[in-house]
């Protein structure tokens, strides 16, 4: 299918770079048995975009630099979107828990948390911009 978004990271189900959604729930595709997926709906990062453009999570990741090398990013986006489907207003702890199975070596996770929070607020209809200290550092 030529979809490049789903990545090979560890072959062991430890890093989360191969995350896809199966019927809306995050699954490590490297450990998934193809026969068990028959007839089920699989969403890769390519499925997050719509005709309207980027998913709010994607927009927030772009704004905050939450994707550095970008290799782990599809996995984080899918795990985050599954979280926001069930929990539209997650606490920081809920985000930390939901993303605990995804490794990122570039960002230190903080910009990812902030992007998830920003996207969640916008998806709830709030008109919010990134905080000054997120973009420019503390004064």
């Amino acid at each position: 299918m030529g979809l490049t978004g789903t990545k090979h990271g560890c072959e062991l189900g430890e890093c989360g770079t191969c995350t896809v959604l199966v019927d809306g729930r995050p699954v490590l595709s490297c450990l998934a048995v193809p026969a068990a997926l028959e007839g089920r709906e699989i969403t890769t990062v390519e499925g997050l975009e719509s005709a309207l453009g980027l998913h709010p999570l994607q927009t927030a990741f772009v704004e905050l630099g939450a994707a550095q090398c970008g290799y782990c990013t599809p996995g984080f986006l899918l795990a985050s979107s599954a979280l926001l489907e069930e929990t539209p207003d997650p606490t920081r702890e809920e985000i930390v828990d939901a993303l605990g199975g995804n490794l990122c070596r570039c960002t230190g996770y903080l910009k990812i948390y902030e992007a998830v929070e920003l996207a969640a607020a916008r998806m709830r209809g709030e008109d919010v911009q990134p905080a000054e200290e997120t973009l420019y550092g503390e004064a």
Partner: protein
Amino acid sequence: MAKPEPPAASTRSGGNLRVVGRALPKIDAVSKVTGRTRFADDLFLPRMLHSRMLRSTSPHAEIRAVDTSRAESMPGVAAVLTGKDLPIPYGILPVSQDEHALCFDKVRFIGDPVAAVAAVDEETAEEACRAIDVEYAELDPVASIGDALDAEDPEIHLYGDGHNVHKAVALEFGDVEAGLAKADLVLEDTFFYEGNTHLPMEQHAALAEWRPDGKLTLWTSTQTPHYVHRALARVLEVPASRIRVIATPNGGGFGGKSDPFNHEIVVAELSRRTGRPVKICLTREEVFYCHRGRHPVLMWMKTGFRKDGSITGMHFRSYLDGGAYGSYGVASTYYTGALQTVTYPVPAYRFEGLRAFTNKPPCGPKRGHGTPQPRFALEVHVDKAAERLGLDPAQMRLDHLVPPDSVTANYMKVGSMGLGACIEKVVAASGWHDKHGKLPEGRGVGLACGSYISGAGLPIYWNAMPHSGVQLKLDRGGGVTVFCGSTDIGQGSDSILAYVVAEILGVDPFEIDVVTADTSLTPVDLGSYSSRVTLMSGNAALQAAERARELLVQALAEAWQIPGSRIALAEGRAMDVEDPDRSMSFAEAVVVAEAKFGTIGTVGSYTPPASPGRYKGAGVGPSPAYSYAAAVAEVTVDPATGETRVDEVWIAHDIGRAINPVVAIGQVEGSVYMGLGEALMEEMTYRGNRNVVHRHPSLLEYKSPTTHEMCRIHTFLVEDPDPNGPFGAKEVGQGPLLPIPPAIVNAIHDAVGVRVDEVPVTPQKVLTALKRKAKGEEPREGPAGVPQFAWPEAVRVPPPWAGGDGRASDDPRHVGAGGVRGSVPGSVPGSVPA
């Protein structure tokens, strides 16, 4: 797809700048969040074959015979290679050409590649590898520095500075013994910093296509396409002009993709032999064997302090466990001794360092290359000195800072120096004075500092050419294309090029095309290492853009019959600032210029300034600018389990100027994360068979911080533009890692009163130290001592304040030895004004 709207400019961005200083998205961010960035393993060519490599199961052995006949006859196998097919050695440094693409006569660690197969698919290639029979004559493995120095053990290589000693160096700047004699306190410590690895999320991958015209293209996940280009030409015996190396976007590098690698050469040769494209993607286990990560370093340090905390002299020794090959090791060795002098003045300094060969995956450069280990030692050592002298560790550092625009004992030329401002920021923000020594048992704060180069002053192979080049093309449609050899490894270097050019030409950075890291299309940039890219390619881009701007201005000045000084380029337009009604679009301005001058293209290049050091070894450490950082860590230590949790980190980084603050903060936060991992959990350790079998070459067992271990971070960017940086910018990708391990270890001492003089600080080490404390023994865990070694005679270099001219005193060209020039008025011991 709509491009993201840039947020409004912050009131904190500088002066009249329109792009620089703004928190803009990276130019490739949308590709990354949509999964469309094409990493090396995403590439596919028609008739492509797949390669796998057979790796040694022995840590140290002579290769008696390799029988590939069974593999060659397997259906689906197109070619099989062994060491004799690629007999020319190579290596990143000219002085350490000690690797073969496939082991030639000997294997030197478990994982060393012996043979390679190209086949119709990966499974067939893997099966064919298993059908290759290798006969080894086992040699005793060398597992440690102690083993290496033991003359009874076999030699791993037949070159270097002694039996299994790859490099041994000794340098003395001034009379250290006399300095120590003047001290009120002489402190002696030993430290150990365990090795660890980069662990980029993307495995190394490469795709080679040897075309019918006899030219080779290699796409590869590398940080240094220029050095891969040179290695391929050497080993394949093909002129460099027939080879094109394209670095694909790196899915993380951190230094781990900075060497030319065996698999890159192997797929090129397999493509030459089969006439078909050949791809390889390493497994995670193989990435652990590629390694080139943080050297395990044992360190000994003896420093004299006056009562006020000033340093009177320092003697530092480092012992690096290099693993099986040279890699960057000679530079790594020098780096462990180079930057001890650029933070606090050291009036007399002696450095001795050695790197041993052992039968383990080769170590090399990881984020901070050779400097996090000695920085850990120095910052913990200084914390102990402050305690002994009854001084506040923050104030003691503030009272003794290397001044800006000065030269250190070992001839590092410091330009802008914002460490004082960094310390003040984190002390105030963390509430240091209310916390240090005052938190309840089990909680504590620690402070540490660091400094790092903004690019190495000298190239890896000696030459007088620029370190970075940029070509700029303006077309009559208004398009601007930047060509540069630099490699984006996720740090945002492609975006930096676009921002710099956009600032000068007054165009939208998201309208600029950036073509990078392609040895046929782009001028050389030496690579993404040593935190050099923003400063060096940024300066080259700045020069090219200013030259292009000048062409536009000249053409418009003539067309409008006004002086060029009245012409401004901004917001995608050119205008007369005194008559704003007279303006045209940028595209129209390019048409005017092209009509006058012909095709509009400019070049820019950058070469670092010469360093004042002229002694052997002076090539490692000099930089156009040093970044500085200070951090306070707050920790909670559970005395029952020994477990340390980092609750919060305050970090201030002296960046000169942030070209893009949100990208810079991302580098700071990522550095803190990686430093936290090194401080508490990450380690490349070995087991079995005399301790040379990798203990955990998988992501299941190699521990790295997940979201659950990550702490809250408060980042402060200290901006004091450095004259050598583009718009004043200095590095940010590596320096912020340096203060983190020592800040955490100093905080553990503040929390529970024990010193753990080695990282990672595992719960077991804390418990051991706590048990010793309870028994009334020295409350410490760490190395007991250092091995015996006959250091070479030191190269003696008089410091600048003793009349030195940067040369060794036995150099016949040395002038001024014996204090002819004397000290410079107003200078601080340990540095003189530049």
